[in-house]
């Protein structure tokens, strides 16, 4: 049989046009302006500082800025690493259908080095303002603020140093995870692009084994990073499925981002090989993992609600009974489960770009809300909320990620032209 996939222009490169750059920059500037307005309002707003009167520590405007930095650091790191993870899954599972879009998935990893720098910098900048456990008096038995529970968990942050000094173990994990993620991303990228000139199936076998190692590492690191970066904010509280919950949130947001990018590239006339059958598969992934996220969210909620143990239910009481966060719990469920579930249920909706574009955009915004609900109640309490600062910061991060990802994508061929399963993908029909 003739090689039908060869009828297409497989040497096509994504050209990062000035017009596309300009529109992304416009969004970035709008975001920066909103962020600026938000900061000015927070500095001169000043009505929320009742905390000072009550004797607790006073609330400063920059705490909200740090919380916003942290939300977006965690969220976009997740989207970036999920791109690499989904790429690795394709090879480990020996999937054929996805051959022309594997580089779209991989391109999200380009954000990882930036994310690493931003995350570590934000941690040192924000420190006490985000993480309660960084206060040294919590570990001092002589201090009136001595906290037995946090003292018990202290070694997880500070080992091998004394508790309350410098969080060596915590920082080491952060550096290690980012280090290995960037290492695996670079290795996979190198192997994938080397295949274009080498041909044959050796590259494919190498990518498959590297992917398998990466998946093992990611299985552990994704969970631990969720405890470190998100769950440790509510230091007393813990949930055993939190790692999976954060992973599922990252995964469905990442899948939506990949689907949007694929549809965008198709709209620009690239990826001719990709037809509605491939889009359908991506749609099924988005639909399926939307339900997976809901399953985990609800499993966490129902058990805590049903058992009603005070140290567990405080997490949801803090959110549900708050004027600031209460409504967002329902916004979260509506945006991330109800609407995607109903809209993407039919086959046609998963095959046509219009519905997918709508739902994927909704999910990307919706899972930001999910992370907002994980981070802000524990750091800002009643001083948080969604305002100019939140929207501005999200737009700034989102457009920066878009610039980096598209810039990375433009560097090589869009389609791995010597992928051994390209032919299979061409005949993919569902």
């Amino acid at each position, binding site marked *: 049989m003739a090689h039908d996939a060869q009828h297409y222009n497989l040497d096509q490169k994504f050209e990062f046009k000035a017009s596309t750059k300009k529109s992304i920059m416009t969004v970035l500037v709008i975001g920066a302006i909103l962020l600026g307005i938000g900061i000015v309002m927070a500095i001169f707003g000043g009505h929320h500082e009742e905390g000072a009167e009550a004797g607790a520590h006073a609330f400063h405007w920059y705490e909200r800025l740090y919380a916003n930095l942290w939300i977006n650091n965690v969220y976009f790191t997740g989207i970036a690493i999920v791109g690499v993870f989904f790429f690795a899954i394709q090879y480990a599972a020996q999937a054929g259908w996805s051959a022309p879009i594997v580089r779209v998935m991989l391109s999200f990893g380009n954000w990882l080095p930036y994310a690493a720098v931003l995350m570590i910098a934000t941690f040192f900048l924000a420190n006490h303002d985000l993480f309660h456990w960084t206060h040294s008096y919590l570990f001092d038995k002589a201090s009136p603020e001595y906290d037995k529970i946090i003292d018990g968990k202290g070694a997880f942050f500070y080992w091998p140093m004394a508790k309350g000094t410098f969080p060596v173990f915590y920082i080491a994990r952060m550096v290690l995870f980012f280090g290995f993620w960037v290492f695996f991303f670079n290795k996979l990228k190198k192997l994938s692009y080397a295949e274009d000139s080498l041909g044959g199936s050796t590259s494919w076998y190498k990518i498959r084994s590297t992917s398998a190692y990466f998946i093992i590492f990611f299985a552990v690191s994704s969970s631990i990073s969720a405890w470190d970066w998100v769950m440790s904010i509510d230091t007393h509280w813990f949930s055993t499925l939190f790692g999976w919950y954060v992973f599922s949130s990252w995964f469905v947001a990442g899948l939506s981002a990949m689907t949007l990018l694929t549809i965008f590239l198709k709209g620009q006339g690239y990826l001719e090989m990709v037809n509605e059958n491939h889009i359908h598969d991506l749609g099924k992934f988005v639909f399926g993992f939307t339900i997976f996220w809901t399953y985990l969210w*609800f499993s966490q*909620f*129902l058990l805590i*609600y*049903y*058992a*009603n143990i005070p140290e567990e239910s405080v997490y949801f009481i803090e959110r549900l009974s708050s004027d600031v966060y209460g409504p967002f719990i329902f916004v979260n469920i509506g945006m991330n489960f109800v609407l995607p579930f109903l809209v993407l*249920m*039919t*086959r046609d909706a998963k095959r046509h770009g219009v519905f997918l574009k709508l739902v994927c955009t909704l999910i990307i915004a919706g899972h930001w809300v999910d992370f907002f609900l994980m981070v802000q109640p524990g750091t800002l309490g009643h001083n948080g909320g969604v305002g100019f600062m939140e929207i501005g910061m999200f737009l700034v991060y989102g457009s920066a990620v878009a610039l980096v990802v598209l810039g990375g994508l433009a560097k090589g061929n869009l389609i791995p032209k010597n992928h051994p399963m390209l032919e299979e993908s061409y005949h993919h029909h569902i």
Partner: protein
Amino acid sequence: MERDTNFVLGVFDDEDVLLHAVEEVRASGVKIHEVYSPYPVHGLEHVLGYKRSRLPIAAFLFGMLGTSLALTMQFYMMRFDWPMIIGGKDYAAFPDFIPVTFEMTVLLAAFGMVGVFMISSNLKPWAQPRIFDVRSTDDKHIMAIDIANNSAMDLAKIEEILKSSGASEVNKKSFE
């Protein structure tokens, strides 16, 4: 001539030949009654021009039925029939109902779908399926053509078309 009684059968040995034969036979204007094969032939329903199954609609409706039955049942039992305080919650504690609601939705959607499928594809328990050729359960693909449905065409012509499109045998079959 009565419908559904007299058939011309084309017997095919190979699925590739069958797929092309279906296209050729349909292109020549002959209406195919049904094709029987020992295993699912990929793309056969496509060349036969079958529309997509409407089974998902039945699944959705039965699922909705399950959802509403489960919620009604639990609200009635827990709020009106025998109110009990469990775990300090309200009588009608909605989150507690979700697991049962989910299970009922899945159960009714599955049962409903199987039932509808059985009825619509004539697999109901009291159905008496007609055997066109027993070899369609072994190694032959059987293309059945209802003669009454193709009365505009000469019988010899139909047999000719079947032969030329690759049928290894052309037989006739009549039912009472």
